[in-house]
């Protein structure tokens, strides 16, 4: 072989070596995320009994991790293109004036709607609307959270709303079309919460989706649970009003002239938990979906001043209910918050641990929703998301990280944060902030 060919072969071998060494070097770095428990306070031996697991990542790259004692193991996950999230459904109400009720109608123009511009901004869009004011409305379950403004079904319930309300319907070709907007729902009503985020009104149990009829003090009739599995499979692109359909009320709940308010539904293993506020007292009905009979009722005193709970987790035969209540107002105008937490033994139907504690603010950050909860060996473990409290931060750069608190006998015995290279993402302005997802607590011997 001539010298010129050999020289080119050597150059190519060097280039190949650069490419291969780069690949090997990067591959060896893939699991060096450096997760650790930071800012530990209290008895760290509680970490030996549980495992904190989850995923840290973004669209490009994610790594799953799990703690064993105070150490972490982590494993890079396969890259996913065109990721599809799990199916989420929300249910809220479509308000239809009750037949026979006097209705005041008014044509108007609304600029609530907006149209997207090519630069990503939005311009107000004037839209013909019909305002209907009536004293009684029939409530139909519907998915009014659809992104394109139409909804696939209307399921008639046995609940009537008895308060004078004005409902604004978009009008298309002279007919009511699209998602109606309720103008004057009472503040704090579970219905206004339901209108904003209806995910607590629907639950998946096996292959079936069950929805409740959330109610407030102005609701009359019979609430209950409906099987919406077939309705959720309907396409949501229809441009006309879907007909009002009827289904069996699987678990009728007498509203007793508004003294019973249905708050939410949750999956509880193979059972369903229906939260009902009776004369102000929160009660958890444990319902068997095989027989549609109530198995137990758990009374939850102490939740009278809290509009609704924040999270509900079930593990190892215990359900953990968490919420928060505003306490003192701080100098910056924000409220200091207290944590409310009840642990319910599902077999006995009794509250076994009750925690009332002032929420810590690690490093000035704010504790957000509880991501998971575990009650084991008479110790309650709560895994929160902690995040920046300032609103000035850009949304995409907002950092939230796991924060673990352990309680024993109602006292806080340990707390710590989970830290990682995500801190550098925030500090060094990395283009995309990685986020913690799928956080969960497990007993170490599980």
């Amino acid at each position, binding site marked *: *072989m*001539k010298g*010129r*060919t050999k*020289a*080119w*072969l050597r*150059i*190519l071998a*060097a*280039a*190949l070596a*650069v*490419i291969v060494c*780069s*690949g090997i*070097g*990067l591959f060896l*770095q*893939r*699991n*060096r*995320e*450096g997760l650790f428990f930071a800012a530990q306070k209290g008895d760290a031996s509680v970490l030996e009994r549980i495992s904190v697991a989850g995923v840290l990542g*973004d*669209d*490009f*790259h994610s790594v799953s991790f799990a703690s064993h004692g105070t150490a972490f193991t982590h494993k890079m996950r*396969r*890259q*996913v*293109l*065109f990721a*599809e999230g799990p199916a989420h459904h929300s249910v809220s109400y479509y308000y239809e004036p009750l037949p026979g009720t006097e209705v005041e109608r008014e044509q108007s123009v609304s600029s609530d709607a907006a149209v997207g511009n090519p630069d990503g901004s939005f311009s107000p869009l004037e839209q013909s609307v019909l305002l209907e004011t009536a004293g009684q409305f029939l409530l139909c379950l519907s998915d009014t959270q659809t992104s394109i403004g139409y909804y696939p079904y209307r399921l008639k319930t046995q609940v009537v709303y008895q308060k004078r309300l004005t409902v604004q319907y978009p009008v298309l070709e002279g007919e009511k079309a699209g998602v109606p907007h309720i103008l004057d729902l009472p503040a704090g009503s579970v219905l206004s919460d339901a209108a904003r985020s209806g995910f607590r009104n629907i639950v998946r149990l096996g292959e079936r989706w069950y929805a409740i009829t959330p109610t407030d003090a102005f609701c009359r009739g019979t609430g209950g649970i409906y099987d919406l599995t077939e309705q959720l499979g309907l396409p949501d692109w229809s441009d006309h009003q879907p007909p009002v359909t009827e289904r069996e009320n699987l678990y009728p709940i007498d509203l007793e002239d508004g003294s019973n308010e249905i708050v939410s539904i949750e999956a509880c293993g193979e059972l369903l938990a229906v939260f009902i506020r009776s004369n102000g007292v929160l009660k958890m009905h444990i319902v068997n979906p095989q027989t549609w009979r109530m198995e137990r009722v758990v009374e939850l005193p102490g939740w009278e001043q809290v509009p609704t709970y924040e999270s509900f987790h079930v593990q190892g035969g215990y359900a953990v209910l968490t919420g928060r209540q505003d306490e003192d107002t701080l100098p910056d105008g924000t409220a200091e918050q207290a944590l409310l937490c009840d642990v319910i033994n599902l077999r006995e139907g009794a509250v076994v641990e009750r925690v009332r504690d002032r929420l810590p603010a690690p490093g000035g950050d704010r504790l957000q929703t509880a991501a998971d909860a575990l009650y084991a060996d008479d110790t309650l473990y709560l895994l929160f998301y902690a995040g920046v409290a300032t609103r000035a931060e850009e949304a995409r750069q907002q950092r939230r990280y796991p924060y673990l608190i352990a309680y024993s006998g109602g006292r806080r015995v340990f707390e710590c944060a989970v830290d990682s*290279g995500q801190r*550098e*993402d925030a*500090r*060094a*302005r*990395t*283009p*995309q902030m990685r986020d913690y997802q799928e956080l969960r607590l497990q007993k170490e011997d599980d």
Partner: protein
Amino acid sequence: MTYVRKTARLAASHLSRMKRFLLAVFALLLAADLVVIGGAFIRYGREEVLSFQSILAFRVLPACFYVAYGVLLIGLLAHFLRLSAKPGGLFALRSLPMGAAGLLWSILLAVLAAILLLWAAQLLALYAGYGLYRLAAMCSAAAWEPPANDLYLAFVRTPFLQFFYPRHPVFWLLAGLMAALPAVVCAYLTVSLCERRTGAFLLASAALGGLAAGMVLGQNAIWEGAPLRGVLAALCAFEVSCLVFMGLMAWRRLRRSRLG
């Protein structure tokens, strides 16, 4: 074995004729990357420490690579098309003892080698830039120790670097096409234009355009929703079909053409 050696010598001869051009492209890419990375640190890094990922996110860096890739492709095409335009150029090579197969392989090998060198130059530029960055970070007033997997995160979280450290079959395929398609296009166009079949430009342009679209879509696939999955699959299938078709056509024309 002799034919293999002679084919390698012919490929080396192609590369030697283009060595000044290749050296200029690689040197300019290396210099441009170092200027951008160093400049970013000088501009932003003194007041607040930027991550290496933020610097790689500047659009100038992928632009430098794509420009270098495009210029290299044009230069390679110009070299081989000059062969087909020269009276006796391709005819002389075709009449060498290796015959049609040797000529085809020499073109493919030369182009693949040039692309491989570009890849290595880009990687060297990034590693040199990272070294510069670490050095500057150490000297910076803001005390900062980058995370242990800083470089790994920079590679896996920068869209255009997915082709340099592919972790998904789509990026393996696109990276393979980025190397193989120019080689086949050069061989196909050289032989076709020698026979005055100018229509070959259309197919070659479509294939290269499809590759560019596939690369853009592949990078967007990281955060886009499922509806584009079919488009990307169709593009990849089109690219692979073009690759096979042009390769077979180049081989067929070399064997049966008037060159012989």
